[in-house]
């Protein structure tokens, strides 16, 4: 099962390597990982997308909690939540393809954020499934480069992850 785990941790050098090291050391999966500082500059927020059965996920959250730099851990998948991923995708765009890419991007509510005579770069935000669907729907287009941010998530409603 796919899980989105949010981690609030001290914004210290080496904190990220502790988390990443833990995953490889204990044979846990990382599908994607994002990390950035929060409004409180002493804290970073990390989102790890991982897979595993209940027991593995339980171990992941427990082991993360054991790290001294980790302040709080939440498995967002346990409750209602919103997840988003950002993708930038560069297409070879000539002739008819220019119109088709534009049309498809509009349908997916993407934006073209860079243009050259031969390329389009599209920005798209959404769930990972939506980004996958966009790529699939332009299967006949020539994709030059795909950059995905990895999943970020936040709980719905009044629930928050803070200290």
């Amino acid at each position: 099962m796919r899980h989105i785990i949010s981690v609030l941790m001290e914004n210290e050098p080496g904190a990220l390597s502790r988390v990443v090291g833990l995953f490889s050391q204990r044979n846990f999966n990382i599908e994607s990982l994002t990390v950035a500082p929060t409004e409180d500059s002493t804290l970073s927020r990390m989102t790890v997308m991982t897979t595993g059965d209940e027991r593995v996920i339980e171990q992941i959250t427990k082991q993360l909690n054991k790290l001294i730099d980790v302040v709080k851990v939440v498995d967002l998948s346990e409750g209602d939540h919103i997840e988003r991923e950002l993708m930038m995708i560069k297409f070879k765009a000539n002739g008819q393809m220019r119109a088709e890419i534009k049309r498809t991007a509009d349908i997916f509510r993407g934006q073209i954020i860079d243009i050259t005579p031969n390329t389009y770069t599209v920005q798209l935000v959404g769930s990972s499934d939506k980004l996958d669907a966009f790529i699939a729907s332009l299967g006949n287009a020539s994709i030059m480069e795909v950059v995905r941010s990895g999943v970020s998530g936040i709980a719905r409603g009044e629930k928050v992850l803070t200290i």
Partner: protein
Amino acid sequence: MELLSGAEMVVRALRDEGVKYIYGYPGGALLHVYDALFQQDEVEHILVRHEQAATHMADAYARATNKPGVALVTSGPGATNAITGIATAYMDSIPMVVITGQVMSFLIGEDAFQETDMLGISRPIVKHNFSVTRAEDIPSIIKKAFYIAQTGRPGPVVIDIPKDMTTPTERFPYEYPKSVKLRSYNPVTKGHSGQIRKAVDMLLAAKRPMIYTGGGIIMGDASAELTELAHLLKYPVTNTLMGLGGFPGTDPQFVGMLGMHGSYEANMAMHHSDLILAIGARFDDRVTNGVDKFCPTARIIHVDIDPASISKTVQADVPIVGPSKAVLEEMIQLVKESKKRPDQDAIDAWWKQIDEWRARHGGRYRTDDSEMMKPQQVIEMLCKVTNGDAFVCSDVGQHQMFAAQYYKYNKPNRWINSGGLGTMGFGLPAAMGVKMNFPESDVVCVTGEGSIQMNIQELSTCKQYDIPVKIICLNNQSLGMVRQWQDMNYESRHSQSYMNSLPDFIKLVESYGHVGMKVTKYADLENAMREAFAMKDRLVFMDIYVDPFEHVYPMQVPRGSMRDMWLSKTERT
């Protein structure tokens, strides 16, 4: 406020933390710190011959006292030599603070002389590690390191100090923090009362209960509480390798160690039990054997200070996160208050069954199949000669298992061995670390001719500081445990498990100024051992020749259940 350099702050902070001995080895990155050490006499530095030994000495001090040991090693090779010792402490949850020198901060990352990424290398085998980036942080980092090392589930903490953080000419106001608080680290101080109540109800209703405890009783200082609860309930107790001494080894309720080389009765009782109270133990693979076949009829109450240990390998029915001592105190209280009593008929029947198992094997071994002395005889004699009251520091291998099985530990912190990592070379430095802190006690290193050679250079340290440990070397001229596995699983192809170029240990130890004794006959053993232990102020190395063909039994059949065991070379359950 007093002004101190970074180097002086390191030493002063250790003093203020109450550290008496530190174990280490100097080098370029630590020269300022060693100079500061030289100029005071409150913290005494013990110079080892290899950094691994420094970490084992610090570790064994912690195992004997439950207080963090301290090692000091330089950057690069000093730090990497310490890694085995740090991993050893980590696997057994031993509190330790290891200070490593580092190259100057502006050289980090440039592959400087004796540079190694100690933070990166040590990360998976420490509870936490710190790098000093501002000299004025040294006191608070040292305070945090000691706090983290000894609270919650204990473990080693590394502090990496670049040389320029210790510059003698740069001075800062020094104050050692009285307390420390970390918002991201709050170890539990008591268990969940509702869960404890539920556990006690289950305990009182059990018909075939087992109390299974590990190192968490020793490090959690909960031996007295465990003994009280077990005596209140009159239930059988088994200890893991790390937990020996947590419950008195000569108590009739003690059924021996459990697991791969556990006693027949302990393993049988575990397999057939209907309720297991596990405290400060982690259901590791050397205990559970095949985890899918583990104790099929038992419900499990698991008490541990580390939530990650609970339901990691074996699912707990009642998880209780908390320190063993506090949880046991609460359990004792509840048992005393409860109107319910254990089902006496069921418990009597259970003990009758256990006693039948005891009668079947009961730790017997053959003495008639060889002319030579048996290693088990040596350990039993050691127990007799030292009145079962020595600190026994073991190396790793067959001798370790014999020392676990045949020495009866009636007190906690007396059995000191590398259980989790299984580090050969641990025994001698461990015995040294204990002896320095318990000069009046008998401190023994039980070893073999394989393990002892992994840190034999420490005989020199023993000479320098007059550390009169007793070394009991069970010499079978082979790597006995490897050989046993080869006998059992590889049709006796003894690949690289034979040693045919052993030194003359007697001459060797004499060259270090110690006493050597060679014993080849059982008839001479008692007198020789008594003579050795009578030499209170001398290190005595007893080179004791034992039957090289002896195996450790019982031995669980790989991937079987708890009850699947070899009981001798020919007998299987």
